[in-house]
């Protein structure tokens, strides 16, 4: 029954998408109000139907209805309720359904927001968006249908979801955050396509386009952060980024979307870079599709791979259609959008934006080539190689430091033709601060070139960003005689986008510090601890106190208890463990992470993580081999990532003031009429 209802809802959603998609394109071409109304209605219907379908699947999961094939595949009566709820995205079919649901929700919001907008732009965009929706719904209805009835006898219990999903809370929220970023990137794609189809692009359309991109970008940032954090907390190798093909696949659209967010401002203010900006917008979505393809096709070997299936070739076909569509749009329609102005001068904000844009795109290509190179090589002479961290680190580090540098320069320069002398004055303070920071760090023993360069540049960019966050408030306080806090609040609530942008910039600064410190100065040591004996390791004293085997319905854990001291201070007892799941051959470790070290602000701002990862346990459980690592300032990575997310969301939200203005304008119109 549930299976039938689910399939019906999905088929109806497919119908709504197809009809609405065609109606949208027709409405764009013919300006037919009926077609436009139809496509909006279909957009809302798509959202409602997919929400219902997802709800039905959740219901089936929760009541353990094993007559539904997906439930039989990932459900288990022994799985905790919370895990059962999120097992919606633990396997291919469910994840595609969830994907369709997020896309449908975004389409619904977009359709609703378009009711009052320029129908030509809106209808083309909604048409394209609904056709993308049709593709995903087609997958859910066809090759990746989670609602199929279970073949043969209905089982009494199932195997439960992927063991990795059950291992840590971050794994539960990492996929949906990333999906939010990936899927909603379809909206900027559709909007950029609509600008090209309509042959015009106004500042107001570009502003909406940037907001949607910022929204996706924020979630993509969060998804990347959570993935890295999870890897660090769970996988036990002690890192958060491995340049795995699928990590790269999510990083590339993040890079192009970042470039887009910046070049779109130049387009909006100066009328330049239209083609470039739209290309970035289109490319961001295409890269998310490439990323999806990578995880769903089995072409790339990765921890993220879902395994092979018929979905790969179909997906490749869809990517081909999207690529050709984008290329045709750019080749045949771009000349309708001629630039208004030539570049004003080298000393201008747009010049720095252009430079940074080029760096972002260069970085994207570097990552793309590194990711695809194993495939190229294999096609060429059959050799199987993998491109590892050294390539990516070596190639990307200089570019990243350069981006960081320009991030410090840009905000100090005005739009349009700038004056070198004035720019020099604006940059004096950040330069001075970074020189002092560099000298102090050098004196403290930070002598390696890249970490030092990273910290100095981070200080430079950090000062600029902080100044942009407080200077306007200080000026306002002086001018209006307000209290500084009041003035800041007034400024922040009026310039939400700006505050969001510089919060994100500060997030990048924090990330740079965290990555520079934790990658440049981590220490690793493999030790064997004997029960009851204290051992000095990397400035800590470790005592292996005992062993315990814990049995849970879905797993068995071998837990070791290790007490940690730093000097005389007892930092507590931690429990690095090894988990065995019935469904998985290899055990999955859970390392113990303790935020310790000589933190000046105690646990609030720990300066170092001590990281213990269980590698081996002797048969009599009296000796344990542990990989011990210290990661200085790693918390800055997580904090920086969260600042990106928060700043991006803040900047993407329509400002209160703007909403009020809009409402005012509307009232006025009504009065005039």
């Amino acid at each position: 029954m549930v299976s039938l209802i689910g399939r019906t809802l999905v088929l109806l959603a497919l119908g709504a998408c197809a009809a609405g998609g065609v109606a949208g394109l027709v409405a764009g071409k013919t300006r037919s109000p009926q077609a436009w109304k139809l496509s909006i209605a279909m957009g809302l219907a798509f959202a409602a139907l997919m929400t219902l379908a997802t709800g039905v699947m959740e219901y089936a999961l929760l009541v353990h209805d094993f007559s539904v094939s997906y439930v039989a595949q990932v459900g288990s009566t022994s799985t905790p309720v919370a895990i059962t709820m999120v097992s919606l995205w633990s396997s291919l079919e469910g994840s595609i359904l969830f994907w369709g649901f997020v896309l449908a929700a975004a389409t619904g919001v977009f359709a609703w927001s378009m009711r009052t907008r320029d129908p030509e732009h809106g209808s083309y965009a909604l048409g394209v968006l609904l056709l993308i929706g049709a593709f995903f719904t087609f997958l859910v209805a066809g090759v990746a249908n989670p609602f199929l009835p279970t073949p043969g006898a209905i089982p009494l219990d199932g195997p439960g979801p992927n063991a990795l999903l059950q291992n840590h809370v971050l794994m539960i929220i990492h996929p949906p955050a990333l999906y939010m970023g990936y899927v909603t990137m379809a909206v900027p794609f559709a909007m950029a396509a609509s600008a090209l189809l309509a042959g015009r692009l106004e500042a107001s359309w570009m502003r909406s386009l940037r907001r949607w991109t910022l929204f996706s970008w924020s979630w993509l940032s969060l998804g990347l952060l959570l993935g890295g954090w999870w890897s660090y907390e769970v996988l036990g190798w002690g890192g958060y980024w491995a340049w795995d093909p699928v990590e790269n696949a999510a990083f590339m659209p993040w890079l192009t979307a970042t470039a887009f967010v910046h070049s779109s401002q130049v387009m909006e203010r100066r009328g330049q870079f239209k083609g470039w900006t739209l290309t970035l917008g289109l490319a961001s979505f295409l890269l998310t599709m490439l990323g999806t393809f990578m995880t769903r096709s089995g072409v790339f070997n990765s921890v993220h791979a879902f395994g092979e299936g018929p979905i790969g070739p179909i997906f490749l076909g869809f990517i081909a259609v999207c690529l050709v569509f984008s290329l045709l749009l750019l080749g045949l329609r771009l000349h309708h959008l001629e630039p208004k102005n030539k570049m004003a001068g080298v000393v201008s904000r747009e010049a720095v934006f252009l430079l940074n844009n080029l760096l972002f795109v260069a970085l994207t290509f570097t990552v793309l080539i590194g990711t695809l190179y194993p495939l190229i090589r294999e096609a060429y002479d059959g050799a199987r190689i993998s491109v590892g961290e050294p390539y990516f680190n070596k190639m990307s580090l200089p570019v990243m430091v350069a981006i960081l540098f320009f991030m410090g320069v840009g905000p100090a320069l005005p739009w349009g033709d700038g004056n070198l002398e004035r720019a020099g004055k604006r940059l004096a303070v950040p330069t001075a601060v970074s020189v002092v920071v560099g000298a102090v760090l050098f004196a403290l023993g930070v002598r390696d070139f890249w970490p030092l360069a990273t910290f100095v540049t981070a200080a430079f960019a950090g000062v600029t960003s902080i100044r942009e966050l407080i200077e306007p408030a200080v000026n306002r306080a002086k001018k209006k005689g307000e209290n500084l806090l009041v003035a800041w609040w007034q400024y922040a609530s009026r310039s939400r986008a700006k505050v969001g942008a510089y919060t994100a910039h500060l997030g990048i600064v924090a990330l740079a510090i965290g990555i520079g410190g934790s990658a440049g100065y981590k220490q690793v040591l493999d030790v064997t601890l004997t029960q009851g004996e204290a051992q000095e390791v990397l400035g800590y004293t470790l005592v292996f106190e005992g062993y315990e085997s814990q049995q849970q319905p879905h797993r068995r854990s071998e837990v070791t208890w290790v007490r940690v001291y730093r000097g005389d201070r007892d930092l507590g007892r931690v429990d690095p463990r090894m988990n065995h799941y019935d469904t998985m051959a290899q055990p999955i470790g859970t390392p113990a992470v303790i935020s310790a070290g000589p933190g000046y602000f105690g646990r609030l701002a720990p300066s170092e993580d001590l990281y213990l990862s269980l590698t081996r346990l002797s048969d009599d459980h009296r000796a344990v081999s542990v990989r011990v690592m210290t990661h200085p300032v790693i918390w800055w990575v997580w904090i920086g990532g969260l600042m990106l997310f928060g700043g991006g969301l803040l900047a993407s939200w329509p400002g209160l003031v703007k909403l009020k203005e809009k409402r005012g304008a509307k009232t006025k119109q009504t009065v005039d009429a």
Partner: protein
Amino acid sequence: MSGQASSAPKGGPNWILLIVGGLAILGFLGLLAFGFGEDEQETVFSERPAPDFELEDLDGKLQKLSGQDKPVVLNFWATWCVPCKAEHPVLLQNASLYPDVQFFGVLYGDNPAKARAYLKGAGSAYPTLMDPTGAIAAAYGVTGVPETFFIDDTQVMRYRHNGPVDMNVMDYGLKAIR
């Protein structure tokens, strides 16, 4: 209404972009499509000669791959590896079912004394080789234990399995080499 009029085209379609972009897309898609033909488990190892080894077993006897006239099953394992212990009975059973196949265990990153003690309790039906430097594991490209290689009587690798074997895997692998 005003859209097309206000921004009348000032140039023509960009043919260079279309041609270059079209070629790039073709190349890119071709590359991704090529990836489908590849299946890690099957193609890399079929027809590949198995690296030879000459190792001492736990009883001190020298064992060689070259010169074996029987197909060989090579199983990398360790006592600290829980799934290895789980698959051990399957291997024992198959070794006694198929006397025409030579089974070898290879100890991976472990202490021979522990292995002897373990086999004493769990039972043993074939020699376990010691690979103290890990050179043989490296030559076979072992990614983790347990991992099992199926080698035919001409010393060509026919199948490899990552993770613990079960009866189905053994059936599949033995069919490929017997």
